[in-house]
């Protein structure tokens, strides 16, 4: 904690240690401080000296550690064992590194496994090999994470890559979309099988793909997965809920209009689900229309509205049919 040195002339003669503990002095204003310093100068030196004396006495009177030498020896032992442990670890790491070099070569060349001359016995060498394989897999996983978990394959002798974006919904793998990307001279998409209603060109323009490809791949994956999710939901609605009529949908699966029939009264309710956010597989707006104008305003249908906003549509319909709200 440093204090501002006072600016008045009287403090010019004070030494540094004066600034440490002047409890009598208020530091709020410079003027006050310089005034107080004049008063506290003589008091401060003597009180400080006496404090130092007290400290020295207390140090002397402190009881010695019982068996101090013994404790120190024990510490020495512990440190020695730690040093030995660390040395052993370093040696292991060196051995694993050697193994990894040969293992990585094996992976790329697919040669027959060559036996490295190991000094340790066979059990140790097996363990070492296992540990090396473990580190190899960890590195592979890390690399996979760095590329965002997308499958990437080198093409055209390193001048291009082919990235695969997988889509899945509810634990089931669906379509895989591929992008062939030139890396030299500039990063450019040369070929792909992304459908035309996914705004790939827009995403590419808005991304930073020259420096970080993930700024393109992550939003693209989001769009594709959301689309796959919506597509699956629409498919399930058509297959599993034959009593609900699909009045309208589109290729992008951003709009779904369903016709429900309310049991007993047999009134028809038109339900429009808008999925205006193409990065999500849940609707942004749910709207009911019916000849019976009061029906959409009733509390039951209001809960249906919020239910459909939060639940995938095929599951929501299942519940609604079970509870008897729709046929």
């Amino acid at each position, binding site marked *: 904690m440093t204090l501002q040195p006072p600016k008045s002339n009287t403090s010019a003669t004070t030494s540094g240690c004066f600034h440490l503990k002047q409890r009598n002095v208020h530091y709020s204003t410079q003027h006050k401080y310089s005034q107080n310093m004049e008063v506290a100068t003589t008091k401060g030196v003597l009180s400080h000296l006496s404090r130092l004396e007290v400290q020295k006495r207390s140090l002397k009177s402190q009881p010695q550690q019982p068996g101090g030498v013994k404790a120190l020896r024990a510490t020495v032992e512990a440190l020695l064992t730690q040093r030995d442990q660390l040395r052993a670890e370093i040696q292991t790491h060196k051995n694993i590194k050697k193994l990894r070099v040969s293992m990585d070569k094996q992976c790329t060349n697919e040669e027959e496994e060559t036996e490295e001359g190991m000094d340790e016995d066979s059990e140790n060498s097996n363990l070492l090999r296992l540990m090396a394989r473990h580190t190899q897999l960890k590195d592979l996983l890390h690399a996979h994470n760095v590329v965002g978990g997308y499958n990437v394959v080198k*093409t055209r002798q390193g001048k291009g890559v*082919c990235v695969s974006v997988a889509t899945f919904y509810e634990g089931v793998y669906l379509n895989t979309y591929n992008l*062939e990307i030139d890396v030299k001279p500039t990063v450019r998409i040369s*070929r792909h099988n992304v*459908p*035309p209603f996914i705004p790939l060109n827009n995403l590419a323009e808005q991304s930073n793909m020259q420096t970080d490809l993930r700024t393109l791949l992550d939003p693209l994956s989001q769009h594709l997965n959301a689309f796959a999710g919506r597509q699956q939901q629409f498919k399930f609605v058509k297959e599993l809920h034959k009593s609900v009529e699909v009045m*309208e949908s*589109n*290729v992008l699966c951003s*709009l779904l209009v369903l016709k429900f029939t309310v049991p007993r009264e047999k009134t028809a309710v038109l339900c429009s689900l808008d999925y205006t956010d193409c990065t999500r597989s849940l609707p942004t707006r749910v709207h009911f229309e019916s000849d019976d104008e009061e029906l959409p305003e009733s509390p039951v249908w209001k809960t249906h509205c919020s239910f459909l906003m939060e639940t995938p549509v095929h599951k929501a319909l299942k519940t609604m049919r079970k509870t008897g709200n729709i046929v």
Partner: protein
Amino acid sequence: MDDSAKRLLQRLMRRIPTPTLRSALEKWGRLTTEQQKSMDFTQSKWALTERLLGICEENELAVKQLTDLEMIHVIDNPDQGMWYAFQLMDPEDDAKSVDLTQFKEQFKSHLRELVRNVSIKMKKHTDEAVWIRIAWGDTFSRPNHLKPTYIVHYLQTPYVFVTSITSKQKPLLSQALVLSTRYQAIKDANLSGRKLTAIRDLLMKKYQQVFPTKYPIPPPENNQTISTFVLLFIDQHIEKEQAELAANRLQMACEAFGGGMLPQLQSAVYKLETKFRDHSNKTMTEREEPFRCVVKFTSTNLLESFRHCASSGIASTPVTPLLSCIPLKGRNYFLITDNGPGPSSQRGQPQV
């Protein structure tokens, strides 16, 4: 039934082959069950036409209902006539939220503003395609139902497929389409073919494409039948040696054109404007105008033919971009000009 309706029906009956007639009539739903039963589909077309004419008179059907029948037939048999693809450009912000009702209303109102007498019919198909039938008229004449234009569009995609349109009608249609889909312009996609499904699948990327992977495709099984015949003449060792090369060629051919069933294009046209480069023929090389020629490839399944050329080694691999850009860019009409005075290739750098 008035004359125009009669002529339309006769034309329809000429167009619709007997095997598909029964299902078309059923879908149309304008015949009672007795009337449907009374149609004997083993009779000649002429007899069927007469019978149908009689039924339509009984039911007092007019041109409006007959155009329904025509539309049903065309939608179920889209691979007839010549289809041309167009591409919408520069969407507005609300282009992706255009819904069917809005598109229908807007298209009809815009087209009716541009053309006085026009008959428009719009229908949504189960695969999300919007089918439009337009019978064109003008200030002085009623719509001509004998030469309608058919248009197919998938909302939220930039592609429009058109058949049977004249150059006079094209700008009117373009205007109506651009305004109702909320884009800013429309251009020719330079893709045409007899099969709507083929050009649609090509542009919408609905066919199986092949990408480089760690695991190349295994060679097709039918090679074995060829090899048993050829084994008499070719050493088995040669086969074995060539196997890897053949697999590579197949992989490259499939990457360029696709795997599995390919969209059936019938032709590809390359219009070249280049310079004649044979130094022994001074008259030709000294001409100032560019040397123009047209190269046309035709086939019942053009992409399949190209793929086979590449995989069997007739065409060199890697496949030249002049051929692989057919599926890549989704077009089969190219204008190739020289890239200026370049020493690189004899054909000149293609600028597509």
